[in-house]
């Protein structure tokens, strides 16, 4: 009897004491197309906020421009819906000035890997404690079906109607190539349990956690992830206690690799493999220096500052 009570408690952790519920984080009604993968990401994020009981006013979602970047409007936290490609510098400024805030960054594939590519690489290197979500539908959604860097080669779009010219850029391989990157993961919005577990691991990681979320766009690229959605055998889960474990998915995704996220060489090899889609934490290293820690300064009161400035003027006195 006492055992079952205890189990019950584990299954529903402190539900009664919870201050915030899913609805606490609900903002405006989401206006994405029906069937858009962004809806599942929003739900998973709201679930994460609830589970972690993040204080809404201590939480900031920063985004760029694109369908996916509407994200902050649909949450009841602080939000900054900025300009195309430049969410990460804004996030950097927020975190640098107010390290106590929980800062999330939401970007589309055009946002992050094309116009914002420089910021993406450098944000990974700064390694501030940010949770960074790339909602990768392999297409420019908002501007209506133009080729993005992650569009599969050959896919017909409005700017490359004979088929996209170039092999798609691999955001995982790029991220894993950045010195001082500390967390690189991939998940898919159509696998909600995996999505949630990955977001949680990303949030809990201290440092910039970069999560590429494979995301369906039913309007412009229904074919892109169709095969993977219908045939779970195309997916391989990377499991590890230091990464994510999703026992509830064992039956659907039977092919799994025990991958130690500390192993960068294997992480890079797995990221490059194009025979299967690998979901899970590719790389994680909590020991990497974090920029906001490196740059920490002792705050000074106005009076302290002014008396130090007097000393400074002494150096320049005539």
């Amino acid at each position, binding site marked *: 009897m006492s055992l079952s009570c205890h189990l019950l408690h584990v299954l529903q952790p402190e539900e009664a004491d919870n201050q915030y519920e899913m609805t606490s984080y609900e903002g405006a009604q989401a206006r994405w197309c029906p069937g858009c993968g962004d809806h599942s990401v929003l739900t998973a994020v709201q679930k994460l906020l609830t589970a972690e009981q993040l204080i809404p006013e*201590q939480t900031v979602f920063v985004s760029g421009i694109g369908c996916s970047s509407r994200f902050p409007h649909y949450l009841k936290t602080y939000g900054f819906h900025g300009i195309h490609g430049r969410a990460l510098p804004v996030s950097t*400024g927020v975190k*640098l000035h*107010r390290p106590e805030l929980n800062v999330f960054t939401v970007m589309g594939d055009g946002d992050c890997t094309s116009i914002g590519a420089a910021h993406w690489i450098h944000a990974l290197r700064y390694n501030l404690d940010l949770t960074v979500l790339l909602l990768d539908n392999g297409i420019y959604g908002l501007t209506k079906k133009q080729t993005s860097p992650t569009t599969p080669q050959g896919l017909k779009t409005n700017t490359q109607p004979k088929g996209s010219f170039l092999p798609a850029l691999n955001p995982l391989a790029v991220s894993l190539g950045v010195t001082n990157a500390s967390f690189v993961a991939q998940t898919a919005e159509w696998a909600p349990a995996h999505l949630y577990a990955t977001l949680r691991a990303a949030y809990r990681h201290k440092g910039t956690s970069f999560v590429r979320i494979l995301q369906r766009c039913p309007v412009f690229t229904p074919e892109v992830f169709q095969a993977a959605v219908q045939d779970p055998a195309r997916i391989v889960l990377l499991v590890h206690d230091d990464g994510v474990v999703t026992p509830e998915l064992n039956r659907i995704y039977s092919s799994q690799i025990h991958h130690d996220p500390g192993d960068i060489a294997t992480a890079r090899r797995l990221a490059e493999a194009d025979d299967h889609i690998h979901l899970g934490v590719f790389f994680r290293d909590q020991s990497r220096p974090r920029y906001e820690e490196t740059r920490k300064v002792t705050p000074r009161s106005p009076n302290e500052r*002014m008396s130090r400035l007097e000393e400074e003027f002494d150096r320049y006195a*005539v």
Partner: protein
Amino acid sequence: MIDATATAASPSASTPPSVLRVPEHTVEIVSDSGEGAQKCGQIFAAVSAKMGNGVWTVEIIPAEVQPPPRVPEGASGNRVRVGSGPVTNWGDQTNLVVAFNEQVLLSRHRVGGLAEDAILLIEEMWATSDDPAVVAQWDAAMEELSSKSYRIIRVPMQEQCLTLVDNPRKGKNMFALGVLARIYGRDMDRIRDQIGHAFRKKSEAVYTTNVSLLELGYHWAEQHIDFRIDIPLEPMDTPLVVMNGNEAIGMGAVAAGFEICAMYPITPATSVSHYLSEVFERFGGIVHQSEDEIAAAGVAIGASYAGKVALTITSGPGLALKTEFLGLAIMTETPLVLVDVQRGGPSTGLPTKVEQSDLLAALYGQPGDAPHVVIAPATIEECFHVMVTARRIAETFRTVVMVLSDANLATGVSPFPRPTLDARWQAAPIDLAPVAEGDKPYDWDLETGLSRRIVPGQPAGMFTLTGLSHDEGSKVAYSSGIHQKSSAMRSRKLAVLQSLLAPPPVHGDEEGELLVVGWGSTKGAIEEAVDRTRAEGLKVSSVHLRFLSPLEPGLKAIFARFRQVVAVEINYSDDPDDPFINEENRRRGQLAMLLRSATLVDIDSWTRVPGEPLRPASIAETIRQRVHSGGAA
């Protein structure tokens, strides 16, 4: 200016030297880079200021980091204008040069900055070099210099310094300083003090050697230079500090309570961040060097959004990159201070040289209707104070404030009264009080457009700001009514700010024949030109604008009291006499364009882009021409 009876240096002057009493003198010290002429010039200027002379110093900088030795383009050093009273600008021509070789001297001759009768003190070792090519260069240079009536004095710097040190390449500068100290009667104890500041931290031995070289130069000049130059001292009671405009901006940023300066290196703005990088952390601030200027703007906006107003510093090309982010800050009413230390443009332009050609880009560079504040400090002192003003305006009006400085202020060094600091200049602590029920992120006061900012961490303030057109509640709104209203609210703030400003003071009489209007670093030169021409009896005055957006009030009324108004600036304008140029297509200077559209007064334009500050003499010349031609040109 120099007494014509002064004779060439004689080996030993037994008669007392002639003393030339002058109200001002401009001195240059030039060498190959790495030979220390700049240090010599800096100490000479600092000591002159400490003794009670007015001083304005500009750096002479080679374009390359390490140019080859003995080439005119490699000239490196300082140009110091020393006067009895305060000196507000770099002046006209150089009266005395100390050059470490004839090639760097040639470069100064060729830019045309030397007075017809300038005194040139030149290291003579090259005349007798073992290398015939060097001797040939020397001879050619002397030939070229003989086109003017310069007075050339050969100085055996190398030979003299070798009596004390093995490698005079490091040390000639102190010898030269000693020569100048003797000629200008500078206080040797103060010079030794300055040398102490500069070298004691290296080692006592370095200090002692430098002082010996200084004294060697002094004694050499005592025996071999038959004149002295006396610029009467007018010591001031007020304590002074001496620095360049970029240091003043850095200190101003500290005084204003900024905590984040995000930047990407670009000349001539970078030295602000060099200064801040050195000291800012002691004040609880950080300099963040971003991956590019776009990111720097983004980081500053993110920080401002999350708390205290942040700062980003750049120059023309960087301003161009920041454009889209500036629009975002204006649209989301996120305060931001941007400093643009202007250089010559467009494109990479003249990276190290002064120009005032970013005005219209600063005012109108953002697509869409993007009202914001633009201010320009006119003096090095104002570079300090403007930072406090800018931060306050940005915070109060929830907008972008651009501060336009330029390379002239950035590298000019001049003393100014030590500011009396006030802790209230500092930013208030971040207020995390709960947001009241019903409060919105843009609770515009319908009359003023002002609203209170909500900052992350404030309970019940969870809104999403957006660069999309939005209503008071930050709800995305495409209806024409809301866009009309929010545009009005953002724009109204400028009118409100203008209502708080006073009309600018007129320098000279309140009415007259000609009014010169300027902005930014040209103030000193313009007012000096006005003073000179007024002394000749011309009815000329000037007005200097600090606010470019909004403009200071009352301009139209001031303009109406003068028969002609001319805007004088360092940017390009067409000369009305040039081919194809007529009244309809004539491009005027940027301030002239702005003022014409704001006042409908037929304001004329006189501008130059010489890659150097305007000289009072050339402004005075244009004043004379205009007054004598007697009508709008």
